[in-house]
């Protein structure tokens, strides 16, 4: 997904013939090999798995075409996990985009604390998601966490009820990713030329008018990028729930990818059904991403 910023800063190079077609193939080969080995091949294996009877411990036992998909859809957590994943995605996307934009504006406006603020917001992004989840696991722990006393006194636990578990996880995600989205937004904001703002000021536009009339429309490509990243990332949420809640309490926080993992490795041990679920998720993601790209297409492009 290229952004218009890139498109603007890189003028099309003059077409020139360099070497033979073979040289061209050689240039493309490293990327092509990587894509084939690390993307196309696993994708084909998952496809094969999804139509095969393939127990984790027993290996490939031959074609089992529609059955895997029937079992996948009939899994007792299928619907719950889809609903929960969508709910989580909507909440995470709204929070992250709004906060990312808000922080970016704050950092851009503030001159004195700019460096400090920018660094402070960005630091959590330097931590891997799994490490961050473990950190919060301890933080939320009613036994060992710093809030253990508070939990004991009030009876409240961070991961004890379905809602608390969802919001506790969302807090972790916001903490971990807000800075990253702020950075993307900042890049977008800095791509908006100053003269547009100057023109607005001359015209006497208020701050709010400037924001809704200039910043938001000109930020559209960045918003598209961040929304797509955020939606796709949230739909594939796994580590945070795997580490923090394990799908609990009472199976209330099972995401789709977690369901795939559970079917493959925790109980059913059926790679065929897990593969079928993965293929369904892949199809859903392709459709959702096409929809998003359409929705964010600049209005004047048609």
């Amino acid at each position, binding site marked *: 997904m290229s952004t218009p910023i890139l498109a603007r800063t890189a003028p099309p190079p003059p077409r020139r013939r360099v070497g033979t077609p073979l040289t061209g193939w050689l240039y493309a080969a490293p990327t092509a090999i990587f894509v084939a080995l690390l993307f196309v091949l696993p994708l084909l294996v998952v496809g094969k798995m999804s139509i095969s009877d393939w127990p984790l*411990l027993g290996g490939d036992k031959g074609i089992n075409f529609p059955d895997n998909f029937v079992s996948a859809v009939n899994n007792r957590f299928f619907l719950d996990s889809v609903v929960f994943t969508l709910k989580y995605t909507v909440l995470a996307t709204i929070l992250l985009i709004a906060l990312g934009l808000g922080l970016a504006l704050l950092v851009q406006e503030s001159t004195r604390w700019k460096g400090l603020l920018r660094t402070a917001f960005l630091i959590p992004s330097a931590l891997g998601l799994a490490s961050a989840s473990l950190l919060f696991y301890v933080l939320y722990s009613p036994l060992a966490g710093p809030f253990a006393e508070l939990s004991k006194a009030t009876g409240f636990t961070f991961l004890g009820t379905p809602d608390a578990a969802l919001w506790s996880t969302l807090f972790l995600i916001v903490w971990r990713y807000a800075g990253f989205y702020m950075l993307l937004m900042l890049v977008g904001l800095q791509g908006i030329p100053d003269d547009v703002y100057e023109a607005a000021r001359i015209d006497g536009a208020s701050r709010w008018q400037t924001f809704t009339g200039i910043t938001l429309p000109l930020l559209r490509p960045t918003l598209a990028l961040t929304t797509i990243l955020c939606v796709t990332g949230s739909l594939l949420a796994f580590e945070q729930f795997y580490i923090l809640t394990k799908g609990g309490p009472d199976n209330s926080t099972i995401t789709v*990818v977690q369901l795939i993992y559970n079917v493959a490795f925790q*109980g059913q041990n059926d790679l065929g059904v897990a593969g079928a679920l993965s293929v369904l998720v892949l199809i859903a993601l392709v459709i959702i991403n096409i929809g998003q790209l359409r929705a964010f297409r*600049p209005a004047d492009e048609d």
Partner: protein
Amino acid sequence: MRKHNRSRSPFRVVAGLVTAGILIAGVAGCAPTSTGSGDAASGGPEGTDDGTTLTLWTRAPLEKQAKLLVDAYNGSHENQVELTVVPNDDYVAKVGAAAGSNSLPDLFAADIVYVPNWVQQGLFQDLSTSIDGLSFKDSINQGHLSAGTYEGKEHVLPFVLDLSMLFWNKDLFEQAGLDPEKAPATMEEFADAAKAVQALNLPDTYGTATGFNCGGCEVFTWFPSIWASGDEVMNAEGTESLLNGDNAKEIYATWKDLWDSGAVLPSSKDEAGPTWTAGFTDGKVGLMFYPATLLSSTPFDVGVAGIPGVDGGASTFVGGDGIGISKDSTHSPQAWNFLNWMMSEDAQVGVLAKDSDATSRSDLADNEYSSKDPRLITINEVAGNGDTPVAINFQQAFNAPNSPWLTLIRNAVLGDGTTVDADNDEITAVLQQ
């Protein structure tokens, strides 16, 4: 804004695929299996001790025992065993991935409840000839041996027995005015003792503890109550759940009463397993159903008894791990040398009993160490009355983090307790898959 055109649909499909596919691809990566070579019996009844390096995998809860055994073996043999300890939750995934890519270690241990399934899937080599050659075969723990027997062939020996026992903190019992030398004999007495300790109102100290989000813990500690009451938990084939009997319901009700009265460690509600015994080990819990393997690492004076049923009786879950030679091992005679030594008196008494662990051989239950500690005799005696349930879908029905068994106990104890029959049907449905 500058307009930019590009061919739309194909690009987007590819972009979507790239965005979506990379994470999913992680699940892939397994190849069909083939059966390994080597016959464990070819090295004779003792196996071969020729300086081969063997690999052994086990899961974290039995790390201590596994290390002791491996160190003792390495110190007295030419063969050297390299031990790999895997976190409990990741063990099945790791074994599964290795089985798919034919890279299992020479020896690996498995939670005894998974053994029937894994043996059926062909992960272990047939050890019948070697095991039949053991003079003490009849005194090897039958629960473990039969879990590893498939179509009349034995594949697995007991690695470490882990028995669930009733442990009580004698100091807290005394403070609560209970007899520190006498075990609660029924579920009711158990509940009364927990409430008595709770009534001391000591800071951070609770009557009892368990793991309400840990299917394995509850299997391990609640099934014995049902057995001790004279009932079964499943039919003999392991395809029908019988966890809605009157005694079972009585046991859930006792726990619900304990939970509602505040005599259970509050963090038990979300306890998923990693720290379910921590409260007792810290001396902050009066009495609990507890793994006997932790006897030696419990630093204060504890009493030990079998787990009681509704009207008395005593039983235990004969858990722990079985061990066998993997289908991928090319060092079967050498691996058998380890297994043969592991079953010997040197290992059973000299290593396990010395560490206050139960022996896997009933003929060695009375030994120099158990005669010093009557609690070990209790453990070994109750082991004889214990049980090891067998079901092909055991993991999915009981141990998995989203198992229907967890739903049952959470509804029965933390909820209103009216859905036991429906939840029990759900377990049966999973067992029959």
